[in-house]
Structure formats: structure tokens, C-alpha cells
């Protein structure tokens, strides 16, 4: 329900600047994902929005209201933590009801909201259990349920999936996506270092690096038109290939980027580049070829379907020209 505006927000711990001036406008009902490598400041930014940390300078507004000094519980936020952070000595019901009890809500109202949230997340049969009697996935649901009960304006997620195993992670990701669709008015901010999570969940992604925003945009924008070499390398899996030296000079740039899926294997002598296949990974649906073409690192080529290419054989490769990314000396794109 809230629009969040950050204006030149900075955060420093003593002499160390963690957030170095961030301007960001998060729209009402948007699913915004903060992504970046560790130490980029993405979690700090989330904690500034939550109010758990004070901002050093700048302005933060929720729906045009300045919230710089507002304590977390007055901001209308709810937060799902990485370790779930359930109160170990309280039953699931009390975990979910704790915030409303502290806000002195009526008992019947608390009960209604807790049961509603529990039903929505299919944990209504667990309400009498203690957190230690639950599985990791169930704990995650309770943590989300606790946040739901607060009926927040803004829903904050701090790497909520990183403690789950791979299978559960995909399932919970889907749950969170469904949750977002069912709560269209609620703004959600989600922190992750996993760009796949970012790409699949986000309406928009904010890429952070060293306490600064590198680029903000929809997943497609970031994928197709990265604003810097860093974003180009960070978004997409497997990573974009970067070529320098003569390969880049041939296209009039410092660094040439091409995603593995945008390179075709063509008939002998027809491609721009050619080289020896060092290694091949067959994932069933796709093949990844690692080809030595004389660049700094082997070129990764993604080919759909079955492909019979022997290791050590020579292949000819042709990049799709409209998918080439060219970067100048400042790592900025040339368009």
C-alpha cells in the first residue's frame, strides 16, 4: 500500500560508509528485489527501510511521510528474516499473535487474523506446536505468517530462502510469488544474492554494488540492456562471456559481452570465431560447450537440445550481432 522514496540516503558506521547515497522510488504494490554480491549494502539498505538501523543522512518517505526517525513498529512494515527468527519458547500461534498483543489489539481480532493467515499458508494444523517441532519449510511459513498477521504496508524479506535446501527453495519461491499476487496492494522488498531468485520474483530489480545503486529496472531490462559491465556480468546464468583485446577491438570497444545462449554453432569456416572444445556439459535440455578461441577464458556456448560434438574437435561459432554488448573504458555500455 505504500510508495517508498529514498533521497540521497547514506549510512556509515563510524568512518566506514556502507550506503553511499541511494536515490530510489519503490512504487505502490511493487515487488522490488535488491540484489548484489555480499558487502554491496543490500541488506543494510533493507534494514534502513525497516528502521532497524537509522539513516545517517538523506530522506526516506513512506507515502510522502518522512520516516527517518520512525521506529520499525510504527512504519507499518513486516519482516521475514533469514533465520526465520521465531521466538523459540512460544507456540506458533503466540509467535504470530505477539505483535498484535503488544499493540493491544482485541483478542477476537487477533484470533481471527492469526487463523486467517495460518489458513492461507496452510499451517493451521501447526498452531499448537513449538518452532523446534517444525521442519525448515514450515518454520519459513510461520515466519511469513507472522508477518502477514501484522497486515503491513511493506513486506520485507531478508534472504528468506538461503537456509532451505534446493527443492524447498523453488517451492517457497513460488509461494512468495503467489503471496505477492494475492496481496496486490502490498509493497514487497526482497533481498537476495541469488540472481535467479531476483529474476523470477521481481517486478523490478535494484542491483547494488559497493553501497551504490548500479541499475534499477525490470528483469528484462537488466538482462537485455545492462547499464554497466558489472550488471551484465551479475545478471544471467551462466554468466555473460566477456572478450577483450583483439576480439573487442574488432567491434570497436574495450570489452565485448555476449551471453552463452546468443552464440550459434555454425558450419566449419562460417563463424566469426572458432576453437577447440575443451569441455562439454550436457544438462539434457541444454548443452554447455567450453570453447578455447584464444581469449582470456574459454567461451561458454549454450546450445539447446542434443548435440554431438566430440571433445577436442574444432567448432566454428557465430554470435548473434544484435545481442552483442559493447563496453567502453569506463565499463559503460556503447549503444
Amino acid at each position, binding site marked *: 500500500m505504500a510508495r517508498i522514496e529514498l533521497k540521497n540516503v547514506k549510512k556509515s558506521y563510524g568512518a566506514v560508509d556502507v550506503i553511499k547515497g541511494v536515490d530510489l522510488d519503490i512504487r505502490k504494490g511493487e515487488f522490488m528485489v535488491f540484489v548484489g554480491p555480499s558487502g554491496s549494502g543490500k541488506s543494510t539498505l533493507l534494514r534502513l527501510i*525497516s528502521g*532497524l538501523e537509522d539513516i545517517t543522512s538523506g530522506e526516506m518517505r513512506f507515502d510522502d511521510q518522512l520516516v527517518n526517525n520512525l*521506529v*520499525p*513498529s510504527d512504519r507499518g*512494515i*513486516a*519482516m521475514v*528474516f*533469514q*533465520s*526465520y*527468527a*521465531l*521466538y*523459540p*519458547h512460544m507456540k506458533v500461534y503466540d509467535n504470530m499473535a*505477539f*505483535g498484535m498483543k*503488544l*499493540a493491544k489489539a482485541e483478542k477476537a481480532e487477533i484470533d481471527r487474523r492469526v487463523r486467517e493467515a495460518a489458513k492461507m499458508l496452510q499451517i493451521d494444523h501447526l498452531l499448537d506446536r513449538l518452532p523446534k517441532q517444525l521442519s525448515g519449510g514450515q518454520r519459513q511459513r510461520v515466519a511469513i505468517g*507472522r508477518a502477514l498477521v*501484522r497486515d503491513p504496508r511493506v513486506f520485507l524479506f531478508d534472504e528468506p530462502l538461503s537456509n532451505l535446501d534446493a527443492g524447498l527453495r523453488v517451492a517457497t519461491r513460488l509461494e512468495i510469488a503467489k503471496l505477492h499476487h494475492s496481496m496486490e496492494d502490498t509493497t514487497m522488498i526482497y533481498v537476495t544474492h541469488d540472481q535467479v531468485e531476483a529474476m523470477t520474483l521481481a517486478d523490478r530489480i535494484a542491483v547494488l554494488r559497493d553501497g551504490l545503486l548500479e541499475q534499477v529496472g525490470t528483469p528484462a531490462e537488466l538482462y537485455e540492456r545492462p547499464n554497466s559491465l558489472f550488471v551484465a556480468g551479475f545478471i544471467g546464468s551462466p554468466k555473460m562471456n566477456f572478450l577483450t583485446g583483439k576480439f573487442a577491438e574488432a567491434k570497436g570497444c574495450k570489452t565485448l559481452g555476449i551471453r552463452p545462449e546468443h552464440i550459434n554453432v555454425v558450419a566449419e569456416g562460417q563463424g566469426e570465431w572458432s576453437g577447440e572444445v575443451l569441455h562439454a556439459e550436457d544438462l539434457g535440455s541444454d548443452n554447455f560447450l567450453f570453447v578455447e578461441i584464444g581469449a582470456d577464458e574459454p567461451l561458454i556456448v549454450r546450445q539447446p537440445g542434443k548435440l554431438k560434438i566430440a571433445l577436442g574437435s574444432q567448432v566454428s561459432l557465430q554470435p548473434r550481432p544484435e545481442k552483442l554488448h559493447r563496453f567502453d573504458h569506463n565499463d559503460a555500455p556503447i549503444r
Partner: protein
Amino acid sequence: MQQHKLLKNIAFYALVIVIVVFAVFPFYYAIVTSFSTGSQLFQVNYWPKAFNWANYEAVLGGRNFPRSIMNSLFIAGCTVGFSLFLAVTASYALARVRFRGRGLLLMTILAVSMFPQIAVLAGLFELVRFLGIFNTPWAMILSYTIFTLPFTVWVLTTFMRDLPVEIEEAAIVDGASPWVIITQVFLPLLWPALVTTGLLAFIGAWNEFLFALTFTSSESQRTVPVAIAMLSGASAQEIPWGPIMAASVIVTVPLIVLVLIFQRKIVAGLTAGGVKG
């Protein structure tokens, strides 16, 4: 090779037995002595000859020793309760809130816990007299705070520091004030630490001698250690070893039972604080 290993094992277990015997024998011998009376005392007995409860009856039947036990229980109980009450909030502030001077404050508290008690004796003596609590339990409750309070603060701070940060932050988001966080979130998680810390502080207060010796003057106000140290017989030459051992066993058995029940937690508490009990 096989023989070598066997020999090593025998030597190891011999060492174990030596350690256990050294640790336990004096207390065992005190028990043996406490059941001996009269002339039995004047011959060395390695094994109990008889179970004569006369010494126990003499000690517990007297007017002053039971009072000393009650004094000690009251004093140690009050001291520990008071210290824990102050230490819980203080250790939250020290472990959980960032503020300037926190390091210095912790260092000061650690330093106070290593204070030589004798250094404050003169000043405390004056304070006790000024407050008019000389020769009352309150003199001990006041003075024991000097070692129980820094100890409980220090140990609870180390325990409090280990509680997960995110749980506290979840509570903050839920709208909990620091007081609510302590009482409704942390205390239920900390009670094992509280029991351990309280027990260690209790043992410290129960065993204290210097203040209790200096701040009491009448037999009825003595604590257990002073009473045992002052236990005398009919004449000055004759030390009543039987009753002394009986009294010693009476005040030690509950401590040993408690310590053995809580031994795992006590070891954790001792090493967490790096402080003596």
C-alpha cells in the same frame, strides 16, 4: 605391542583413580569422623566403625547452628535475588545496545569482580555502622553485592550476547520495547543461564568468610562459615572435631548435590565468565 598398550591403559586408569581418590577422600574422611564420638576420635579409622548420630544431634540440637543456617540461607538468597534482578537489565544493555563507553564499563565491572575484599573492608565497616546494620544480615547482603553483582553481570552479558540478533529484531519489528524484549523474549530463553549464574553466586555468598567475620559480633547472627570456624568445645584446648565435621557435612552435602545436578551447566558458566564461583 599388545602388552605395551595394556600397560599404558593400566597406568592411565591408575592416574584416574589417584585423581578421584585425592578429590574425594577428605570429604569421605570428614563423613567418617562425623559419625565417631569419644575415644573413637583418637584413633585413626579408615572405614566407618559405627553410625553414631550424636554429633549431628549436638550440632542441630544447639541453639545457634540452626540459626546460622537460616542466616546463611537468607543472606545468600537475598544477595543472589538482588544481584540477578539488577544484572538482567544491566547485562541486556551491555550485551545488546551500542553506546559509547561500553568497553570501558565492562572492563570496570571485570576489575571490580577481582577487587581484594580487604580493600573495601574499612570503608564498608564505616558504611555498615553508619547505616546501623552492623551485626544484622543486611550488612552481609550489602557487602556481598560487591562480588556477586559484577560476577552475575559479567556472566549474563556473555550469555546474553550469544542470543540470536534476529530474534531481537523480530521483536522490535513486532513493536516490543527493550523492557518487553527482556521480560517476554529473552528471559524465557535465558533461564538456564540464570539458574547457573544464580547458583554460582549463591555458592560464593554461602562460602564468604571475611565480611561475615567482621560484620557480626553475636553468635546468633553468624553465618555458617563463621559458625564452623568458631565452633569451640568445653575448654579452649579441646577442639570438638566430631561436631565440626558433622556441621561441615551438613552445610556441604546440599552444595555438592546441587553442583552434581547442575554440573554441565556450572562448567559452562564457569568457563563462560572465566570467573570463580
